[in-house]
């Protein structure tokens, strides 16, 4: 075998690339692995999106039209699993892979081979998960939260579901360890923690959340597995256990998980808004502390997902107040973004448009979250379409919009070509209008009492569901435009400069577009001009 230090390599040709399929299968390069993550996430975005289209088609009218109820429930369950574990998380890790080493002045991720393994687990894991559609008993249909005893009644797909979760957990933990090792150990000389770009900060915090929460999920699903196959009674009251215990363990993972999904989005937006406001980020330190505070608090609010399941009153109150307190650091972030724009010399390219839409629409999701966090109010809203509207505002117009913003923001850096600004803005406006047509009416039907995860509904909900479905189809189709923008950008986009955006600051913008295959072979010098600004 051959190996060597980059010391040997940069003497001959430091931009030499492995070729063919092996370049991707055996990669130890953070950019190639980042690209694979992003492409994988985009493919899964359309897989999960197709499931959403089935859901919206079925809900276009009351009554049963296209699918049977079991398959409908499989659609909602698999849509969630695919979008969470196959789209938002891998896309976030993909961006981290591409950007973190460049932002901190490192040559690559700290543990490049493990990095490749974290990625290659994903396709195998999703083959396992998606293959359940063709098994006796069908795909998981008990909801992505896998509550027992319902989920243990799943057919042959059950062990595949459990092992998929284990497998994805292994991938996430390895990815998180890699990010921590990279940021703690690979920063260029002079790059202190308080000089790190906010995207890097949000990813460190996310990595800690992953390491602390994914193993708990692994434990929870292991107990499901042994309850079904080995006769244990963790979640069986007749044996002294309690099905509610699963909900506690699951949501101890599940609530940090929602911050795993959204914190990298906060980081992306915190890079973009200063760039297009041509001002440094307002309140950098408070942004860092707010991120850490949100992450810390996220371990003490889990039971707000289960207010109606039965809990001592003290528990209901504790989890309500703890939940409310998360609004404080989140508010700090929103106000800092707004203050960054205050008297900025702003322009509105596509990344900025998506980032602005993020701030406004994510805040709507945040406010509906506050409503849901009030225990007595939640007794009304629980398991209605209001909840569906809430988490789609934070996850679609929140996480997905930020990921789109990040993709447009960094696409010229990755490819060396500018994307088509007109098409980008068309994609933005189509997405933003259709996504609100899609999800805003769901608040109304939810407050009026329409339950979630049901293929049929009472006739009084028909109009809003039709409107919602039309918005859904429009949003789904609009995303195809994004694929076209990316392909067009790679094939015929105008050459991009090093800095790409006039207001861009940071090490990654000092590199050529596209950056060399091995970014830094010797540590760059960091000074005030290249730090986060």
């Amino acid at each position, binding site marked *: 075998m051959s*190996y060597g230090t980059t010391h040997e390599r940069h003497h001959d040709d430091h931009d030499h690339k492995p070729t063919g399929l092996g370049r991707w299968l*055996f990669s130890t390069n953070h950019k190639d692995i980042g690209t694979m993550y992003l492409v994988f996430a985009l493919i899964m975005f359309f897989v999960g999106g197709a499931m959403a289209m089935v859901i919206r088609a079925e809900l276009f009218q009351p009554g049963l039209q296209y699918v049977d109820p079991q398959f409908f429930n499989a659609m909602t369950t698999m849509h969630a699993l695919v979008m969470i574990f196959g789209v938002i998380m891998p896309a976030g890790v993909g961006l981290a892979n591409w950007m973190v080493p460049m932002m901190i002045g490192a040559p690559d991720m700290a543990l490049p081979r493990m990095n490749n393994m974290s990625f290659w687990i994903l396709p195998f894991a999703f083959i396992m998960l998606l293959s359940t559609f063709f098994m006796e008993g069908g795909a998981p249909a008990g909801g992505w939260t896998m509550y027992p005893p319902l989920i243990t009644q799943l057919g042959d797909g059950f062990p595949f579901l459990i092992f998929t979760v*284990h497998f994805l957990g292994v991938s996430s933990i390895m990815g998180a360890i890699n990010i921590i090792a990279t940021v703690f*150990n690979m920063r260029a000389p002079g790059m202190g923690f308080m000089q790190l770009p906010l995207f890097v900060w949000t990813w460190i915090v996310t990595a800690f959340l992953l390491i*602390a929460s994914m193993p708990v999920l692994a434990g929870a699903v292991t107990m499901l597995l042994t309850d079904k196959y080995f006769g244990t*009674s*963790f979640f069986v009251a007749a044996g*002294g256990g309690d099905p509610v215990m699963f909900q506690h363990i699951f949501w101890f993972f599940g609530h940090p998980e929602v911050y795993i999904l959204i914190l990298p989005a906060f980081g992306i937006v915190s890079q973009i808004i200063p760039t297009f406001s041509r001002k440094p980020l307002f309140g950098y330190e408070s942004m860092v502390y707010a991120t850490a505070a949100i992450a810390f608090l996220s371990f003490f609010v889990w039971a707000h997902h289960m207010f109606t399941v039965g809990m*001592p009153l003290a528990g209901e109150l504790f989890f309500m107040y703890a939940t409310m307190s998360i609004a404080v650091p989140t508010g700090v972030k929103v106000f800092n973004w707004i203050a960054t724009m205050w008297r900025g010399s702003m322009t509105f390219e596509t990344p900025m448009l998506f980032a602005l839409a993020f701030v406004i629409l994510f805040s709507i999701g945040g406010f509906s979250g506050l409503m849901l966090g009030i225990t007595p109010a939640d007794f009304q809203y629980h398991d209605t379409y209001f909840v569906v509207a809430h988490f789609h505002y934070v996850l679609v117009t929140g996480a997905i919009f930020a990921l789109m913003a990040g993709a447009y923001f960094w696409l010229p850096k990755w490819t060396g070509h500018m994307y088509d600004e007109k098409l980008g803005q068309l994609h933005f406006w189509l997405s933003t209008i259709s996504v609100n047509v899609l999800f805003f009416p769901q608040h109304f039907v939810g407050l009026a009492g329409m339950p979630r995860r049901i293929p049929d509904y009472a006739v009084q909900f028909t109009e809003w569901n039709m409107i919602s479905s039309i918005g859904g189809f429009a949003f789904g189709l609009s995303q195809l435009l994004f694929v076209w923008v990316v392909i067009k950008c790679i094939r015929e986009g105008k050459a991009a400069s090093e800095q790409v955006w006039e207001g861009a600051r940071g090490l990654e913008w000092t590199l050529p577009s596209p950056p060399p295959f091995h970014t830094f072979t010797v540590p760059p010098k960091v000074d005030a001009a290249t730090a986060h600004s």
Partner: protein
Amino acid sequence: MSNSQDTYFIPEPSRWPVLFSLALFLAFCGTAFMFNQYLATGAMPGFGSHLLLLGFVGVFVMFFVWFRDVIDESISGAYNNQVDISFRWGMAWFIFSEVMFFAAFFGALFYARVYSVPWLGGEGAGAATNEFLWPSFDNIWPLLVTPDMTVEGLSSKFTEIRDIIPAFGIPALNTVILLSSGATVTFAHWALKKNQRSGLCWWLFATVFLGFLFVGLQAAEYVHAYNDLGLTLNSGIYGSTFFMLTGFHGFHVTMGATMLTVILLRSIKGHFTKENHFAFEAVAWYWHFVDVVWLGLFIFVYWL
């Protein structure tokens, strides 16, 4: 503070990560097929077990070749101080993730003891559950008689526990064994740092011996529990938490002892210098981690 070297180490492209993922995929699918086969026919051997075996062999081979590459690189001097620190961060946070895995099962144990069993016994909001479903169930820990047994008697799907394993028998002995092994691995480390090779090997040998002795005693205890005490995975929440916690711990001890064996063989072969021996330290960290988990088990599963 980041690093003082003027060059970086980046490994060349490697075949092992993707093949490792494939091997894990085969092992997971094999196990899943086995479970399904077992539920359908009650018979274990077949396609699933072959797939599992293939995956398991693959995982083993991948560990071997991947670590072989790392060891070759390390011995050839390709690594600098920065790589060493990356490995340290990696191992430390891997161990933390393992701590959180055990935390889930400890959480289940505490939840059962503090909430679910008292509620089933009629405390708090459980009064109606107790009265209408299992009126003769008593909230006692250790839970020898499950709610189901109070109604179904001997036809219950749960086995009745006749007795539990007392803390101050084999478990106390195992505590002494594991704590001693923590000391012997430290003696081995001191010997390595003084470049006393035979001391290193003998203390490591003692650690491996104590580690497998622990596993052996634990296995004997399991046989006793299943054959004589009626304490099984099937005996309600006590058996569930008991076997899952001690079982996963025993699995980790086996892994740790296997890793120590590899370190012992490498030490005999002459690997490690008194400055450069992170593999030794990583395994020692892991060993102390299983030690600490055991103390938690001894106190909360066996003793209190």
